[in-house]
């Protein structure tokens, strides 16, 4: 009876560690925050028409605020800043940890309270770390 208990305990421990290992190998996703898909932004927002409220409804709260002056045009523009960093496909195999990363930055320009333009940029890369 003692032998059976001992065997069951070790089987449970082994199952637990195998579960942990499996979890370690599973693909995961981590992000620094919400970021709206900007692919159809042109259809949903209109330059010179859309208000800040409409932009906020579509894109959410910006991560930062500011203002700018374009060299040839002295009227200041308000700028909203959105960003996120996303890490996907985190893997740890044979002592090598790999992860795909992607950063997106979106600047929204307003002139006199209405949308004047935007700039979106994205970069991605692979991170490899030998453990």
């Amino acid at each position, binding site marked *: 009876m003692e032998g059976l208990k001992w065997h069951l305990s070790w089987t449970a421990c082994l199952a637990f560690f195998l579960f942990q290992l499996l979890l370690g190998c599973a693909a995961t996703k981590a992000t620094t*925050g*919400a970021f*709206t898909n900007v692919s159809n932004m042109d259809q949903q927002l209109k330059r010179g028409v859309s*208000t*800040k*409220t409409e932009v*906020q*409804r579509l894109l*959410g*709260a*910006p991560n*930062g*605020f500011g203002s700018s002056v374009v060299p040839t045009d002295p009227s200041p523009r308000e700028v909203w800043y959105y960003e996120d960093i996303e890490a996907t496909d985190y893997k740890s195999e044979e002592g090598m940890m790999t992860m795909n990363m992607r950063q997106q930055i979106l600047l929204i320009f307003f002139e006199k*309270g209405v949308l004047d333009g935007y700039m979106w940029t994205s970069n991605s890369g692979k991170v490899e770390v030998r453990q």
Partner: protein
Amino acid sequence: MKDLLINGMILFILALACVGLFGCTTVSTVDIQQSFETTKQRKIRIEPCANRTNYQGSRDLAGEATRAFTEKMQQSGLFEITPDAQLVLTCDIERFEEGSAAKRWLMPGWGATQAEVVVMVWEKPEDKILATFRSEAAVKAGGLYTIGADQYIFGAAFDDVVKQIKSWTSGSPPEK
């Protein structure tokens, strides 16, 4: 027997203290665009929260967050909530992780329950943003003592937001 009871009580108090210490934590960011004018604004309108997360479950996060936020603002007594107010509060849920108390019990940090919310204060009809309050609440440890954290996590995040709004309306610097 008496010693055993006392030891048990001490252990229980220590366990509760640990939950208190490592239970729910909040991190906030405040962006003040304009100082608050006490004489001008005493009424607010709260817009329904928008869910911007990738949450795939069956819960109505937007509804839960809207209820929690409205309740916290009412309890604070800072403003009168009316549908025609010129001061408008919008609310976004930026992150939600349901987490698991069982996972936290197995390993602190694993299965964390998290919620990040952003509240923007607008002055209408000028469409002017007065302030933005962001708060992230998390329960990362506490094991089985933290069962149900996914139910109160929005409340914890909005408590923090309300605390920051209170500082802003009183003209004091944001609370740490």
